[in-house]
């Protein structure tokens, strides 16, 4: 769950970033976008968000999310081997 929240009036707004140009309501990288908005001072990008958490909190959330993904990926990679052992 992203910490950064989009204002209702901007949920359909399309933003091209990274590998996706999905509307803001469908994006799973809002924290990353929020970090960029704060670091660049982009007034347009900042205007899409509700009041944002502090930059260090957003960065920690992004890191935790990435770590979570890595742990999940590692677990998925090791699961078939465990099944083989059970056999």
């Amino acid at each position, binding site marked *: 769950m992203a910490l950064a929240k989009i204002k209702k009036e901007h949920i359909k707004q399309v933003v091209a*970033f990274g590998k996706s*140009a999905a509307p803001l309501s469908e994006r799973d990288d809002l924290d990353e976008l929020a970090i960029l908005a704060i670091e660049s001072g*982009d007034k347009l990008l900042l205007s899409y968000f509700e009041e944002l958490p502090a930059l260090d909190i957003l960065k920690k959330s992004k890191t935790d999310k990435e770590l979570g993904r890595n742990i999940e990926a590692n677990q998925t990679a090791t699961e078939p081997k465990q099944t083989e052992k059970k056999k």
Partner: protein
Amino acid sequence: MLCATIRPRTRACGPTTGGISNIAVFDPNDLNFTQAADVAGAKQPYSVVAIRIGATSPVVFGITFKEDEAEYKFTQSRNGCSVSYEHEIDASIEDLDQSATQFLQAVDAAACCCGLGFFIRLNSGKILVMGEKYVNGESIPKFKVAQDGSTGTSGKVFEDYNGVALVFKGKYSRALYEYSGTWATIEALMVA
């Protein structure tokens, strides 16, 4: 460096390629580019492209050109401390027809009023931005790109070329910035 901060020009050893893969045009008033803060004084590429409020979709339009005929180039010149970069895109669109006329009329009208913006996807994979107007929610010094010097021909015999040799030119104070996202995200703006 007692006078100026010089930077190295380095790249990982590996091959690259010449030529242009795709060109897309936009109204510079329609898009806002996000540029992260300088890192150790160095300008960063654009990382986000957002449709500005009030712009009507689609906001980016692809240009189908004759394969292997498009080229982007620039010429840098200097007068004292004043630096100028003359940017140019050359591309051939085949077949003189109503669609070609409509395209030319549209780009002439846009160029007269507000200029044109371009995404240029090189065969190397890099995406360059030319003619942008809004960065980080604010307008930047005017970077006006317009059609200037295009020529058209029907050819004389069957095998002759029939089409328009497009030329877009624009002067600015620097070389082009890169967009760090994928071309798929630009394509999405063509239908958004």
